[in-house]
């Protein structure tokens, strides 16, 4: 099972280049798409979900030519948009029943079984009779997962689903995702590095409409092993440090000093201490390289 994205480009009428000759191949499993806001993640996701057309390029899912046969893809697609709502004053049960019919499940019995199943997976069975427009943010996102599962999709696209969730809701949501990731491709976009670390077996970092790096999270951190250094410096020194070294991130301590993380092949100075590389370092290195290029 493979999703092949080839040389995808899209420039909006206002001149923003959202996708820039983007090529990407995604295999079965949980794929994380990491990038800052405005990187083009949503544009890519919406294009994959057949909600907008690129100017150039092709997308193939298995043997489906997605851009020319959007309807064929939709039959096997599950999509959770970044921003969605539902009709007011309708319960999860009633909405899912309508949506399941729209996904082509005509038998009432099949529908009822399926709805019960997706409500249980998403932990919404207890609140199935409540109006979805009264749900909390986390419940609404899980409803979004419930609806996308209705056609047993092979390609699942979830666009920034953890944005705005509190930590408990976020964990519950990620657990639901983990549960459904078995025999399909799940593409998951986020600007939160921890989401990827906790969940994905493959990932890409995106910015400026381009893929900056594609790698397995574990391999990506292995590549920069022994190249991450930390130093605790005063606030006044930060600027100097940034000029001298590749400073990836800086965090304030309680005494107003700053811990900086630096990327370098060799120990940059004797006061630097070697640190364990993490995925956040990978992310910032990719973004830094892109900004310099």
């Amino acid at each position, binding site marked *: 099972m493979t999703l092949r994205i080839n040389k995808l480009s899209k420039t909006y009428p206002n001149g923003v280049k959202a996708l820039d000759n983007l090529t990407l191949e995604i295999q079965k499993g949980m794929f994380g798409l990491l990038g800052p806001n405005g990187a083009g993640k*949503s*544009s890519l996701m*919406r294009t994959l979900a057949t*909600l907008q057309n690129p100017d150039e390029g092709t997308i193939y899912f298995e043997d489906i030519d997605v851009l020319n046969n959007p309807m064929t893809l939709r039959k096997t697609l599950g999509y959770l948009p970044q921003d969605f709502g539902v009709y007011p004053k309708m319960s999860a049960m009633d909405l899912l029943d309508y949506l399941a019919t729209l996904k*082509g499940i005509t038998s009432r019995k099949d529908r009822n079984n399926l709805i019960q199943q997706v409500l249980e997976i998403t932990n919404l069975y207890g609140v199935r009779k409540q109006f979805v427009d009264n749900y909390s943010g986390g419940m609404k996102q899980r409803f979004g997962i419930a609806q996308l599962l209705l056609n047993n999709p092979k390609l699942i696209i979830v666009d920034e689903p953890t944005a705005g969730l509190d930590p408990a809701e976020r964990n519950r949501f990620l657990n639901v995702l983990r549960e459904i990731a078995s025999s399909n491709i799940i593409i998951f976009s986020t600007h939160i590095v921890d989401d990827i670390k906790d969940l994905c077996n493959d990932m890409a970092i995106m910015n400026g409409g381009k893929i900056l790096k594609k790698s397995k999270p574990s391999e990506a951190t292995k590549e920069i092993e022994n190249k991450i250094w930390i130093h605790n410096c005063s606030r006044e020194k930060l600027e100097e440090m940034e000029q001298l070294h590749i400073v990836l991130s800086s965090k304030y301590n309680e005494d107003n000093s700053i811990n900086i993380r630096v990327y370098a092949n060799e120990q940059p100075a004797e006061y630097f201490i070697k640190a364990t590389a993490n995925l956040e370092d990978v992310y910032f290195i990719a973004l830094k390289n892109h900004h310099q290029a």
Partner: protein
Amino acid sequence: MFLTILHFELKYWLKNWSFYIYLSVFFVMALLSMAGAAGAFGEGTASTDHIANSPLSIYNFTKFFNKFLLFLLPAIVGSTIYKDFKSNFNNILFTYPFSKTNYLFAKFLSSFIIVSIITIFVELGLFLGTKIPTANGAQLLPFDALPYLQTYFIFLIPNLLLFGTVVFVTVLISRNIYVGFISVILLWLLSEIVLRIAGIESLTSFLLEPFGNNATQSITRHWTLSEQNTLPLVLQPIVYYNRLVWLFASIIIFTIGYRWFSFSQNLLH
């Protein structure tokens, strides 16, 4: 899929109290208008030499109610398409495996059926207004279904279809319900302008006045009082040509909206 969406939208309206309010208001207004004209509320309310349910009188009543019915169109036809955008449900729905044809036709037809049902209650109200026990029998003709059917199928329904299509397409394109209201007023103004420029007795205005009233009244305008009270509604061929012109216009407007619309539209950010 067409039937699924149609059924869902019809059920949505039939379970919505606003449908019953619209329906009751039009029914009661029509009933009281007819009853009043038939002297049911005493001599002072009606001129006694007019027959209240003559074909021309029924026509005049429906012509009056037609204007008010137009303002149901944004509320019903417009909102049926608008609610998908307003709720942001379209972001999910438009990735579902149904076709644009099924979606647009089911959305339009369901809302138009609802408007047609409310319109039936105008005719029903007019008819039952003649049955009020206190009505003056001398101001009433025996029941005849034809003028009710004529006004419903030749005037009200085609007019609502035209304005309904305009509202549907403008809301579809603008994704804004208020533009739907404005489009009703603009089309109405346009018809007034046509009348002023072409003059009420010209062939142009017979054909291009969108309600078909000018073509009809070109005959009835010259009727004497006793003719107004007794004659059936004479519909000359020009009335049917007018209806055809605007039916064709409705189809063209719908086609423009259909061609323009796509599930794949740009997100500007």
